[in-house]
């Protein structure tokens, strides 16, 4: 404890007097503004870490009751009521076709996301943090990741030694996937 102030002084000397002026305080006022940083909500589904831009998220809610909708795909939990609007709620674990046991526990949350001007609820296992990611830290279009889940990935980023998968809502929320496979044919005939 007593040692520390001395270290601080030494460090300050190293950094030079120029740091310690009122001017710099004003400079700093400006310097902090970097326009292209984007904030992401990081959340866990199964064992992996996923992220969505905070701009896509309208609200983070506790898991709420939904009304099941017949003739929909297995990942569609149903419809729920968010501030007067009826929105579809999906189970992201099932949507991403993840495997393994899992239960919607007490850390589970429903992310209310905005996509194509409509709201959707995504049930995730836990919301971890809000992180800031610079565009240069995002690995775009990971062509290397083949397989069925590749299409849901928009980009990848490293967060504290872990890979954060930024989801592509366009494919995750592709409307044609919502109707149960057997029913879809009929729906098309009708249309």
């Amino acid at each position, binding site marked *: 404890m007593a040692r520390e102030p001395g270290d601080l002084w030494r460090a300050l000397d190293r950094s030079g007097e120029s740091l310690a002026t009122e*001017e710099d305080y*004003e*400079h700093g*006022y*400006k*310097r902090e503004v970097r*326009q*292209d*940083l*984007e904030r992401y*909500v990081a959340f866990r589904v199964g064992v992996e870490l996923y992220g969505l831009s905070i*701009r896509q998220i*309208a*609200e*983070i*809610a*506790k898991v709420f009751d*939904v*009304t*099941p*909708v*017949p*003739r*929909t795909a297995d990942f*569609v939990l149903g*419809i*729920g*009521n968010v*501030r*007067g*609007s*009826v*929105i*579809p709620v999906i189970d992201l674990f099932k949507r991403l076709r993840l495997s393994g046991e899992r239960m919607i526990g007490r850390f589970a*949350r429903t992310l209310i996301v905005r996509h*194509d001007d*409509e*709201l*959707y609820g995504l049930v995730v296992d836990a*919301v971890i943090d*809000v992180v800031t990611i610079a565009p240069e830290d995002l690995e775009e279009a990971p062509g290397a990741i083949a397989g069925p889940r590749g299409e849901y990935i928009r980009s990848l980023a490293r967060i504290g030694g872990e890979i954060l998968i930024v989801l592509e809502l366009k494919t995750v*929320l592709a*409307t044609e996937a*919502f*109707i149960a496979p*057997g*029913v879809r*044919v*009929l*729906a098309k005939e*009708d*249309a």
Partner: protein
Amino acid sequence: MTDSSRPSNEFLTEAQEVIEAFSHNLLELDAQQRTGDYDPDVLNAAFRAVHSLKGLAALFGAGPIAALSHALEGTLDALRLGKLALTPRALDVLFECVEVFQRLLAAFGEGREESDSIGPLLDRIAALSGVGPEPAAGASGDTIAGLDESILGVLTEYEEHRLRENIRLQRNLYRVHASFDLLAIDVGIETLKAKMKEFGEVITYLPSADSSSEDRIDLDILVGSHRPIAEIVAGVAEDDVTVHELSRGRTIAPSSPPRTPAPTTAPVHLEPEPTPSVPVDVAEEEETPRESIDGAISLRSLSQTVRVDLERLDHLMNLIGELGVVHANLGSTLDILKRRAHSGDVARDFLLHLRAMSRKLSLLQQGLLDVRMVPLGQVFDKLARVVRKLGRDADKEIRLSISGAQTELDKLIVEELSDPLMHMVRNCIDHGIEHAAEREAAGKLAVGRIDLRAFQKGNRVVIEVEDDGRGMDWRGIRDIALRRGVVSATEAREMSVAETLELVFRPGFTTRETATEISGRGVGMDVVKTNISRLSGMIDVDTEPGRGTKFSITLPVTLAIIQALVIECAKQTFCIPLNAVLESIMVREAEIATVEGHEVISLRGRTLPLVHLSRLFELPGAGGYVDPERIYVVVIGLAQHRVGLVVDDLVGQQDVVIKPLGKALRAVPGIAGATELGANRTVLLLDVGKLVDEAMGRAELSAPVKIGRPEVTDGP
């Protein structure tokens, strides 16, 4: 460091914007100051603008601008703390600063120094500080009636100043308690803030740790408002939010006497009380007797109408629904009676009475629906008052023209429309319509104009709010959206003008700060849009710079409430539009026959195919009958195409508001939408047309269609 290499262009643009914002704040303050009171947020915004300017100027080495903003910052700080009075003279000096800022900035841009010109102005700024305000009501150290010491102890000087101002203005003080999920606090707080702002002034937020959960945070929000507690409570109407009144808006200044309740035989004029040393803003006091006198006409109309709580109407509506079920049961009883011997006369009488009852029942139902319909004029009148008051406050003369006030909509919709419309009209006045001088300079009539129109268009009602103000600058909107990170650079480049204007409806775009930057339109428009979509409506914006802005709200008339039969099946609840229901009957299992593998019953001599909803929808636990002696069949469809839908129970009839399911679920066959049945219970509404088609198609083809249920596949 990039500092020196940065083009000074960036500084010039940004500084220019800040100066413009500052100037705009001053204009607002000027208009407000003349009415005797001003919005503290505007003063605060002016303070912050100058603070940013100071930082910018220092960064780019614009010495004189930095020096001037430094001096000005001190003055504005004193103003917002009430240590200085916002007099016309003070405003003059502030306006002069805007001029000088602009000159200095131009000089800096051209590489000239103009440092000698600010000396006299700095003196004038310094001279302002010599002028104290009228002694602030209640010297500090006073306790404030009804206010917990512990609250006062954590307020900053500025917050305490605002608290005392609220008391001086005889507002009531409320402590609004809310609890938020930590991660969602931004969103939650924005919503609540927007609501509170409508009622009055948010003085501060007092966070406290919620002992029950690490993920939650409790907030006490201190609000000053003229409105009574009931209105505030009704206004916030949200879970996890409670409102406490801290004190009557009693004053701590001995010079302004506490408001006395008016005696029942109210004299026309205010009691000749000594005028308070600080003039009370009459416009703020909406409930003063003086105001209600010129509203004599509305007093008379009050005596002819009764205000009914919408909930009571809902209750009556539900009772009628239940009567409908009783009616259906009586019908079944009649059928049983008819099968008995020697019942002819009785059965005939019974049938006559039953028909009469049926007629009266539907009249009663229609009557009650009519009661719910109210002309939009109710809201328009309210808006007219707002325009008068706000126009006066903003020192803008505004003519409001109204058409289509007689257009009727369900009460529920009209109620929900009132806030969004109010907000839009307020935006027109605050930011859309220019001051007379500016208008005349632009070759317009000095008197601003707002048009409120309602009309029916097909099966929709359109409401338009149009002003002839300065319009919205779509480039400005785009630039700000870009800077705020609402859109990316690529997106911004590819956006059309219409798409750009749409940005004002995005949350995150419409923050207070942006308000002053882009001719201020679109403050809280995201909230407006949310409210409109809640009614299944749409909102569009159309604008022409310099000519005005038009917002159009389109509401489907069919949203108006439909009558539905509520049924249960496999423990789930569904609604069936009543206009597609021919009748509901009760049959015994023994009455069900099988024709070519399809279940049928005979109804008045005709064969009626049966469809089990639970099997059609593959509902979990779909099995046998709850009670083989009482099987409920809802007969749906049209004359030629009738199907008996087998369900577990009839719950009743109810009026429901149909909500769309959205793009993803719209295509689900057999489901037409959703609705809410009390207690936030969302229920699906069946698409009868499609279900009948499906059933008929299946019957005709006699072939398995899609769901591999045994009773379907064992056709020929």
